[in-house]
């Protein structure tokens, strides 16, 4: 059933539309952003360090561009920070030490996974609250528009309907 058709039929249509929107939302959640690592000249030698490096730059935010991670940003500061990360990884620093180093300089802002506290509660819980609110709306809509058998028209009503349909609308 197409969306247009489903919209044209109130009872079943609302349910179909709701399902469609639900699947659309699910699809959006699944479509993870394609990883787009900026290319740097010196690569880390060991595959283990490389894996940690790529995990880190995916999760750290570029402090200049703000809505890009370090992996995706071409800003000079992101290049510098990636270089610093590689230096520290080679020097044997742990992920936690590297994160502390960056948070001390750029604040919690640098991390896409800030610790859960009073300031970040809305950030962490917001999506769940939104999904919950959306689910409630959908449930309410589905309940209200549960398909019912439409009451049959009386003879007089059918007669009136005929007249309405056949008559030309008055100009």
């Amino acid at each position, binding site marked *: 059933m197409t969306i247009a058709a489903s919209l044209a039929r109130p009872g079943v249509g609302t349910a179909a539309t709701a399902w469609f929107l639900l699947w659309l939302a699910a699809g959006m959640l699944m479509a993870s952003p394609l990883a787009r690592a900026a290319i740097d000249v010196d690569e880390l030698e060991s595959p283990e360090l490389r894996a940690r490096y790529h995990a880190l730059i995916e999760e750290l935010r570029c*402090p*200049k561009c*703000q809505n890009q991670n370090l992996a995706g940003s071409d*800003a*000079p*500061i992101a290049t*510098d*920070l990636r270089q*610093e990360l590689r230096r520290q990884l080679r020097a044997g620093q742990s992920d936690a030490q590297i994160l502390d180093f960056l*948070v*001390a*300089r*750029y*604040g919690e*802002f640098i991390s896409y996974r800030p610790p859960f506290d009073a300031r970040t509660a809305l950030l962490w819980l917001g999506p769940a609250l939104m999904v919950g609110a959306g689910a409630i709306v959908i449930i309410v809509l589905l309940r209200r528009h549960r398909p019912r058998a439409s009451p049959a028209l009386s003879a007089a009503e059918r007669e009136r309907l005929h007249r309405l349909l056949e008559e030309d609308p008055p100009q």
Partner: protein
Amino acid sequence: MSRWRLFLPLVLFLALAAFFLYVQLRIQDGDYDPQNMPSALLDRPVPAFQLPELHSGELVGSELVAGKPALLNVWATWCPSCVYEHPFLNQLREQGVIAIIGVNYKDEDAAARRWLSEKGDPYTAVVVDADGRLGLDLGVTGAPETYLVDASGRIRLRYQGPLDERVWQTVFAPRLQAMGQAAGMAAGKTVEQP
């Protein structure tokens, strides 16, 4: 189904639009800059460093910013906003408002010296941060950035972007005055005159 609910989406849309308009107007007025982040080093001492001074070549450290309030101005010759900012720094220097320490960030010494001899030198000293190490320790994200450092060498304010008269009056002067320093009081008076 009652009729007013038909208008609910419109009302929600208008409320959202009004909110965005409000934020946009505040950005235009310069009251709010989403790019401007408070420094993670706020109320902390300037990080330790040992770097050459641009003119003398001698190694200098954070003792440069001790004793009285000073500005730490991160600049570079490759930075377009620094061109815009430079005359105002010269003006601060001429009026003797506050000492300005330059941090020449990821730049070339020759280009930096040429810039200062052509445009005037507002700095009491210029720290050469060629590889951006001091910038990294300060949490610099680009140039220009300006830090207000108090007499004890602690960072009281960080401003990202070029300084001008308006920024000075609205952001720096009140903070300087709040610091209750004699220099701060003088600064507030000096810059009030056009």
